[in-house]
């Protein structure tokens, strides 16, 4: 067992874990950070989506040894702090549109949405319907229509 260190939601932390344990389990089972959800552990459902250095990724498919001490991991719990507010504009948009049903997918949806909007902004272009079609996050409750509305609204305020 080795000690791993990285930045988690703004704080440098260290944790003892076998090298190969996927980051999702380190977060959920060892650190008790349960915002990123387990939906498949196969990099498919996207319900674990979080950010590494500001980009969306799936911690269920990254070994903890591949996370470097300088890497900044942001989970849904740490998202508001990235904009210095109580709620990130995307979370607010989610509330305004009353997107959630069971809610299980929604932390991952929001994290993916933020990254998608930033990606378009970085490329200096408007978010398109085709961009939204590319989001792979499953919502088994079928909230897709409101998710699309919320992303468009949230993007306005980002």
């Amino acid at each position, binding site marked *: 067992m080795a000690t791993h260190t990285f930045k988690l939601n703004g704080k440098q932390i260290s944790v003892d874990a076998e090298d190969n344990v996927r980051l999702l389990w380190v977060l959920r089972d060892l650190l008790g950070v349960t915002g990123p959800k*387990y939906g498949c552990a*196969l990099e498919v459902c996207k319900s674990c989506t979080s950010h590494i250095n500001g980009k969306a*990724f799936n911690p269920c*498919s990254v070994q903890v040894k591949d996370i470097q001490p300088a890497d900044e991991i942001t989970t849904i719990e740490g998202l508001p702090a990235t904009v210095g507010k109580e709620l990130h504009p995307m979370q607010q948009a989610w509330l305004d549109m009353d997107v959630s049903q069971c809610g299980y997918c929604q932390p991952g949806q929001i994290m993916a949405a933020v990254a998608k909007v930033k990606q378009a902004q970085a490329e200096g272009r408007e978010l398109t319907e085709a961009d939204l079609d590319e989001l792979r996050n499953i919502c088994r409750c079928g909230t897709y229509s409101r998710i699309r509305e919320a992303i468009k609204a949230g993007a306005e305020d980002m």
Partner: protein
Amino acid sequence: MAEHRRSPNQSAEMAADERGRLGRRRVLGYLIAAPTLAVGVTWIANSNDPQTADAAVPTLPQPEQIFDLGDLQNLAAAPTSGLISVQLRTDGTAYFAVPRAEVGQGMTTAIAMMVAEELDLPMDKVSIGLADARPELLMNQLTGGSNSMRSMFLPVRTAAAIARQRLVETAAAQWGTPASNLTTRDGVVSGPTGRTATYGSLAEAAATSTTITVSAELKSRSEFTVLGRPHNRVDAVDIVTGRKQFGMDRQVPNAKPTMVARPPTINGTVKSINNLAAVRAMPGITDVVAISHGVAIRGDTFGQCIDAIQVVDATWGPGTVDNESDATVLAKLRAAQLPMAVPPLLSNTIDAEFVFAFASNSPLEPDCAIADVRPDSAEIWASLKVPIVAQEDIAKQLGLPIHAVKVHVNQAGGSFGRHLFHDVAAEAAEISQKMGKPVKLSWSRTDNFRQGRTHPMCTSRVRVNYLAGNVLSYEQRHTSVQTDFGHGLGEMITSTAAHLPVAGNLSFAETIFTLSQSSPYNFGVTTQLLNEIPLKFNTGSMRNIYSPNVVCAEELVVDRLAAKLGQDPVRFRRNFLRDKRLLAALNKAAEVGEWGKAMPKGMAQGVGLHAEYRGAVAALVEIDCRPETVNRPIPDGVSGPRVTKALIVVDPGFCINPRGLEAQMIGGLQDAIALALTSSLHIKDGIPLEGSWDNYFYTRQWNTPRDVQVLIMPNTSDSPSGAGELAVAPAFAAVACAYARATGTMPTYFPINHGKLGFEPHPLEPSTPQSPTDGLDHTF
């Protein structure tokens, strides 16, 4: 045209003499002895739907129209002596423990609205929890059949109204003024001289030391200020901040992650573990034991359980359907189809058969449960829609008295029928007992698809005879692999069978079928019958039991009939519909959805109708089947035809929360699109091939319509219909009909892409595939 039947909700109207002035209804409940104000109400005293079961079964309407599954559940709930209660706390909040599971359908929000309305309390002062298993509530603790809203609507409001009245009386006594001089608003009682008292300040004084019967008046619909207005979900902030605690997130001391290595066929068993020591020696693993259906592994993290599953070498025993594949099941279904009663009329007959593949009802949260089994007691945490049956069964399994087993209900990440059963809780209990330690069991994603419950394969045969512009007979023979109702509905039926308006010795499934299905059309002699074959798949309902398939088959045939009679599908339906509310919904949908507008070749509109749970829905969709759309490239996903636009018009009887209702309609639509076009299980040699969400193609963003609209019709009743399952059937039918019109071919096998396997299956062993390690290559 034949006369219109009475609409299903007419029976729900209250008799005039039950109402006082202002159209208010007087209701009964109890003040319960407690330190602060507490009000209890029985289910039976204020049952929402009148119990018309003793009325003779009319010969003409099919049973579903006078008495449906929800009525049955209400009736079965009646004998309970248990009370549901609203408690007022000294901080001014009201607490209500819902004896049902919240799995995403917005029930807690709707119930908070009911309490807020009758108690004149702001929504944020109402707190709703989920009740543990309470055997005294008997079948009231069943969340199924879209019944919750209907059965809770009066009892919850009654409890809140009595609480409000008691607070007013308490203030009146303290101030020496008649109660009629006082008003309530936002959790405050106000008197004539400007005197005020918060509910919290009255909560103790309003309490009683002996339990007494009281009555109060409910508000009439015209006085509502909360009910009927849009409200966002009460748990929305917790959800978007990641704070909402699902079953998977719950921590119980020492309940370590546990998974199971499973055999390669459904319900397979373990003969021997050939490398027990090696599995036990895997990093982080604490315990390994053989259980009924696999090898249970407990460790520090779920990831290490998955690692250990990779190395398990076991000799497996047979499962329950090892020799079955899609084709063998279909052959058995065809052999079991009940005969038609009416012979074909040669050229004036439509005979059609539709096949519906196995489908998975797995929610996004993998099935999970925590169990802490001790020698003389046990504690279980799981998402359970029928917690008291789970408690009883698990007690029996563990050899413990019922009261020694405590069952807590978790918030679940979706259900769709899965949590009617307690398979996972029972397995967690078995593992905890065998290991002698608390466990947090999660089925893996692959387990959920391959070993979890499915909506069974079924066929629907339809024969219609028509002559000179009239339909003479409509017969439908639905044949299904047995649906498991072992979750307690059966007990309800047994106890209430005498009251049922269905004649003869119907099996339980036939009873459910009869109570949930009815054709809304004037099609002459109409019979819809069910037969089931007893194959040992793990089955269950999935956002409805039979309706999506039955209605899809019916509506496709209706479109075909319309074509044979030279009529437009909407006009044909208008001519033959006998359900007034459906007709109104259809007319609205046709108008708003611009029925009949010009569409490019390869695109078409489709319409589907369905009334159930005392609600009525018309769905109108547009589909794009042009090659450039069908063949659009999607990595690791299916493209195929795309529904580009969807309109759902819903008549919910009384609409409690338009926002919540709209959400349920949108969700039902996405299920419908999946059932029609993309999602199914392929059974091969005793197990589904699907093992992940990129195999089981539930609707994804690239399949969903960019234009979705939900229209809610004005209230047609004082009582709410069920909503969670209502949209699936009509939207499924609409998509299927649109597809048939766009392509010129009526689809007969669903989903339409079932014939082509769109993925490379994961191996059967190890039963849970190893997680990838290349996540950092796919950031965006």
